[in-house]
């Protein structure tokens, strides 16, 4: 996308559909044991990453935690490469070496996929440092969960970003839980956004189930950062419909709570907005959904048919110069 251009909202709706259908399929393939290890789904949170990418340029930097499939898809990593990564195949976005929690796509400026809680927040600050160092007008978007804000790395990183006035948006995807621990039980603050104040970083809260609200808020922040580099903090209130990972039955929350959020579904909401405004018909929506499902099915097929990473290459990605010390 070029500067000043607005992303087409119908396109963003289809991105959200792609993410949802991808995650549903991933869940099914996990149960069929085609996918191993830990696998964290993004269902319910689609408007956050969709709103974010709609607000920035394609060459801005994005980095996130382990709930990362959607961030890669939103960045333009193909569903094929994402599914192949889950299958551990050579055609995956990390050559089958990273897995669900470690998606990377350099070409599309998706810098991971990081599985140690908050360990990537300092990395994001480093990326923002490099932007300023080179005098560019890019911005770094750093996504993390509500659970990350109590790690030392997070606090140190925020201070550094504020101290050096770096071009970065800290985006806290507050889905109310870190595994089985609710924010109330993990954090001494009434609201997460107040963390930013302690570092003199401007903060806002937005409704993460509302695509437009997320997009507009981030667009405004990014606009001001491009004029004069500085950090900003956004607490995005959202919800994950599924358990923390595939093995979590999520018995720490009530059905009623889940239902409440489902009624506020981000896809349904954007669809309704567009339909009301005459920008989307039911037929169109069904077509988009069908497309998303087909793309994902094709991705499963692609992943299945892709080759395993060859055993001979086991040592090829340990040292950049191929050294075997």
């Amino acid at each position, binding site marked *: 996308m070029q500067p000043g251009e607005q992303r087409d909202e119908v396109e963003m709706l289809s991105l959200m559909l792609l993410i949802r259908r991808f995650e549903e399929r991933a869940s099914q393939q996990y149960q069929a044991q085609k996918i191993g*290890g830990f696998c964290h789904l993004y269902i319910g949170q689609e408007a956050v990453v969709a709103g974010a990418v709609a607000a920035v340029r394609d060459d801005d930097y994005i980095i996130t935690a382990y709930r990362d499939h959607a961030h890669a898809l939103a960045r333009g990593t193909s569903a094929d490469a994402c599914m192949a990564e889950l299958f*551990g195949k050579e055609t995956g976005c*990390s050559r089958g070496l*990273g897995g669900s929690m470690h998606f990377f796509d350099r070409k599309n400026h998706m810098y991971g996929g990081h599985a140690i809680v*908050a*360990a990537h927040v300092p990395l994001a600050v480093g990326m923002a440092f490099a932007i300023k160092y080179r005098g560019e007008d890019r911005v770094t978007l750093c996504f993390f969960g509500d659970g990350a804000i*109590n*790690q030392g790395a997070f606090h140190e990183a925020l201070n550094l970003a504020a101290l050096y006035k770096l071009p970065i948006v800290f985006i806290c995807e507050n889905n109310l839980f870190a*595994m089985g621990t609710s924010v109330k039980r993990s954090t001494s603050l009434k609201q997460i956004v107040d963390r930013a104040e302690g570092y003199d970083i401007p903060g806002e809260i937005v409704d993460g189930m509302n695509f437009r609200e997320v997009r507009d808020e981030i667009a405004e922040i990014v606009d001001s950062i491009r004029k004069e580099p500085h950090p900003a903090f956004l607490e995005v209130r959202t919800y994950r419909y599924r358990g923390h990972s595939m093995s979590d039955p999520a018995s720490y929350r009530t059905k009623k709570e889940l239902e409440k959020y489902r009624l506020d579904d981000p896809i349904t909401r954007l669809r309704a907005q567009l339909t009301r405004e005459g920008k989307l018909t039911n037929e169109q929506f069904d077509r988009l959904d069908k497309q998303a499902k087909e793309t994902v099915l094709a991705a499963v097929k692609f992943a299945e048919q892709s080759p395993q990473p060859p055993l001979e290459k086991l040592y090829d990605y340990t040292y950049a110069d191929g050294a075997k010390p």
Partner: protein
Amino acid sequence: MREITYRQALNEALAEELERDPNVFLMGEEVAEYQGAYKVSQGLLQRFGPRRIIDTPISENGFAGLGVGAAMVGLRPIIEFMTFSFSLVAFDQVVNNAPNMFTMSGGQFNIPITFRGPNGPAHQLGATHSHATENFYASVPGLKVCTPATPRDAKGLLKTAVRDDNPVLVLEAELLYSSKGMVEPPDEELLIPLGKADVKREGSDVSIICYAQTVPLALKVAAQLEEEDISAEIVDLRSIKPLDEKAIFDSVTKTHRVVIVEQDHPFCGVGAEVCYRIQKNIFDALDAPIIRVSQEDVPMPYNERLEHAVLPNAEKLIAAVKQVCYA
């Protein structure tokens, strides 16, 4: 004796030590309300209450340090890492504060703390979540490190660790939580000393030295080798530090051939230390060079086939045994 799982054995050890000593408390992520990420602390919150079974935010450096501080003033913390891969976030507390305090204070402050949790590669968890940390920690003076492989050893070693007046790491085997074994009944006190290896199987042709997740592997391989008329003795180190030199030397003096199978990396791995001590002390007992089977020296790949290629496995172990036996 009755049969219980490794997970239950640890749970019993925790409960018994909490019961015995009011200064003992358990702290970590999801240990209380969630009943433990791997259900090791199941039921403990209900039994001992939130004063002693304490959920934390995701702040490993913080709560590991809290444990060290509490230990300085007389409590006996048990700090659970959801896995030891996450203990790396708390490396400073475990490596710098816990073991140095006694020396730095001229013997005024010993740190009776237990750090415990799953350790070692599990299944397809990728590079960040598959660390075998035993060789990192065993290289630090002031720390003790044990690696139980059976329910009985898990219970006995954990209870001993809690009573030890030094920082002790109990590195539980992530893949063995559901494995079963015979353990003394709860009314019989079970304490297994640190620094005592255990011969898990007697043999005469070769000593296979192993620990943690490589113990079941070695036992399986020993059964296979039996059919080929190779009699393997299985020495489970149980503790990495202190290391039971005597048990190792006794076995090697009998068999004259050694394979070390370890779950960590080859470079400066546990086996390197064991190997060094054998050749230094009983060089003449050896009839063949010692071979180590370890992980490959690469970050753990996610792909299942590559992961299998990285880990020690039966094929590699059998080949190594045949090599030292010139078979």
